[in-house]
């Protein structure tokens, strides 16, 4: 770059931000929603609120039922995963993979009978959670795309920091009455800078959660590519045992569950049965994380045939391995209580706003002068901005709506919910291409608002013991609907702003002398843009 360091970084910030902006926005929105994944999942499976939680003493018997089901339906699988009933998810959650390439098996069972649980077929919050790092693509592809975006986000953050001359002043700068572009720039700066520690943390730790996937070369060099050996040496997992290739009956898991429960205070979260039916079968009992920043589940490994304890994994990580798990823990925020979780959520929203204002800024900085025709790229960016910033929330609202309105016995219901999500998103992304830019913003923001209201209405109508109908029931529904109402109000406000926004203001600002160059974050030494005003974006 034939320019100063700051200028080249401003350039890098602009273009790296634009290229991945829309995907990043989707990652930020779904990631932010994932802070409430258990709540969303529970809201989407209202049947659970009517089921009595399973007594801890009955866990052993429930696990036996799970194993019986898996022995019948997944005898060839190499590993069985059994999610044990929890207070907020009172079912057995079975999952198994037979071999790579084949779709994994998944079923929810009633822990009291072992029959399939009577619950609507939905992915719940897990869909948003997985979308956050796999974008609903094949996992390998999705993770690489998200990793690439995260890396570019990291670069955009670094270059964004360099671009700022007076980062501290930008904490407190918001000129909403100035030229619109200046307000957008300030909004971008405020949301970016105020939550900057969060953005840096969330981006880097996000990459770290999949670090050995993105950067396996250390494991390749030091462990000849054997990641399992690395994980167990780092004390993250119990030592893996290869199959003996001799058949042997699996011992009853009930007593193992009892022993595991007696050994630790944390609730038992899931069982992992590796090589079932083999003489070297291993049953790993995984507990909930103890309180703390670090993402590490205590584990106890049992010999699957004799039922004896093989190994107990409980903390004691070395510094680097601990740093790893703390970073993962920070990203996932399991440690956060209600208030801290809300703060994480708000920081996530600020991240969404930072990305959104950033891509809008790009298009504002390139508005054609009077009499000029907008170039094709600008038109495309404008349409994509509407399609993602208003379109994705609309799609999420439609996803929630589909959960309430689709017939409960619809075959492949889970997939239909997801089709509704993508269908809504595609429509929301295509419509702005055909509409004038401002009207498209207005219409779609209003549509999101209406859809959020529709979610509340559908919730009230379809949940017989909704707390607002009876005064009893699970408060979760009231909280969820309140959040939806808040979002509806927010989007309605945004639509109103868009409608009432006075265009002449911009012309006035343009007619006046070029906006002051001394503004923070504007880069004074940049080559003149097409318009006379200094541009940051």
């Amino acid at each position: 770059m034939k320019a100063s360091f700051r200028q080249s970084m401003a350039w890098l910030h602009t273009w790296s931000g634009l290229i991945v902006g829309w995907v990043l926005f989707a990652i930020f929105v779904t990631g932010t929603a994932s802070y409430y994944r258990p709540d969303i999942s529970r809201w989407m499976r209202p049947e659970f609120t009517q089921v009595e939680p399973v007594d801890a003493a009955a866990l052993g018997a429930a696990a036996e039922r799970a194993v019986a089901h898996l022995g019948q339906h997944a005898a060839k699988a190499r590993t069985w995963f059994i999610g044990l009933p929890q207070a907020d998810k009172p079912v057995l959650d079975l999952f198994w993979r037979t071999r790579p390439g084949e779709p994994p098996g998944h079923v929810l069972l009633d822990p009291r009978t072992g029959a399939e649980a009577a619950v609507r077929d939905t992915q719940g919050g897990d869909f948003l959670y997985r979308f956050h790092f796999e974008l609903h693509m094949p996992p390998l592809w999705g993770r690489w795309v998200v990793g690439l975006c995260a890396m570019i986000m990291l670069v955009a953050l670094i270059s964004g920091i360099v671009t700022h001359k007076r980062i501290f002043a930008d904490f407190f700068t918001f000129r909403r009455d100035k030229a619109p572009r200046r307000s957008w720039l300030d909004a971008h700066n405020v949301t970016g800078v105020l939550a900057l520690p969060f953005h840096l943390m969330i981006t880097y730790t996000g990459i770290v959660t999949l670090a050995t996937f993105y950067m396996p070369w250390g494991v390749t060099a030091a462990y000849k590519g054997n990641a399992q050996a690395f994980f167990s040496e780092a004390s993250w997992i119990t030592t893996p045992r290869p199959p003996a290739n001799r058949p042997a009956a699996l011992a009853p898991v009930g007593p193992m569950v009892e022993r595991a429960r007696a050994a630790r205070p944390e609730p038992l979260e899931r069982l992992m049965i590796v090589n079932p039916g083999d003489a070297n079968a291993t049953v790993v009992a995984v507990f909930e994380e103890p309180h703390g920043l670090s993402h590490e589940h205590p584990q106890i490994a049992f010999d699957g045939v004799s039922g004896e304890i093989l190994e107990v994994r409980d903390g004691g990580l070395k510094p680097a391995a601990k740093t790893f798990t703390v970073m993962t823990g920070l990203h996932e925020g399991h440690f956060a209580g209600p208030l801290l979780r809300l703060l994480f959520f708000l920081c996530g929203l600020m991240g969404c706003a930072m990305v959104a204002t950033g891509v809008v800024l790009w298009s504002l900085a390139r508005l054609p002068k009077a009499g000029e025709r907008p170039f094709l790229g600008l038109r495309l960016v404008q349409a994509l901005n509407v399609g993602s910033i208003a379109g994705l929330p609309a799609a999420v609202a439609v996803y929630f709506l589909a959960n309430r309105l689709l017939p409960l016995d619809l075959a492949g219901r889970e997939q239909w919910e997801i089709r509704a999500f993508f269908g809504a998103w595609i429509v929301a992304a295509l419509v702005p291409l055909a509409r004038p830019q401002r009207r498209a913003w207005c219409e779609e923001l209003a549509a999101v608002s209406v859809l959020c209201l529709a979610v509340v209405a559908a919730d009230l109508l379809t949940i017989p013991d909704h707390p607002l109908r009876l005064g009893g029931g699970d408060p979760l529904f009231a909280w969820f609907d309140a959040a939806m109402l808040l979002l509806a109000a927010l989007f309605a406000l945004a639509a109103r702003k868009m409608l009432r926004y006075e265009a002449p203001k911009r012309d006035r600002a343009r007619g006046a002398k070029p906006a002051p160059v001394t503004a923070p974050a504007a880069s004074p030494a940049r080559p003149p843009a097409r318009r006379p005003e200094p541009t940051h974006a």
Partner: protein
Amino acid sequence: MAAQGRTTVRERASVAGRVVLAAGGGYGVAALATALLSLTLPMARSEAVATATLLSFAVMAGIVVLVFSTRTLLRALLTVGGAALVLGALLWLAMGGSRP
């Protein structure tokens, strides 16, 4: 910059070259550094791998910033290529040394 009007083919090629160098070179140098540190850091094997892997993304981000801030593409290419060569040679030594 699109807003800047005429962009010469040469400038476009330079930008494209930098993008390729930043992505490929950045990842390559980070990967080599990770492998090298994993073998050479004076700590337990798992700790060395964990440390090296944690640092690798900072290394990559640093290389990307370097590639886009260096004055000419050639100089950026030489810097990244040189770093990769040095790291590669050291890694080769480290791997040779680890095999009796």
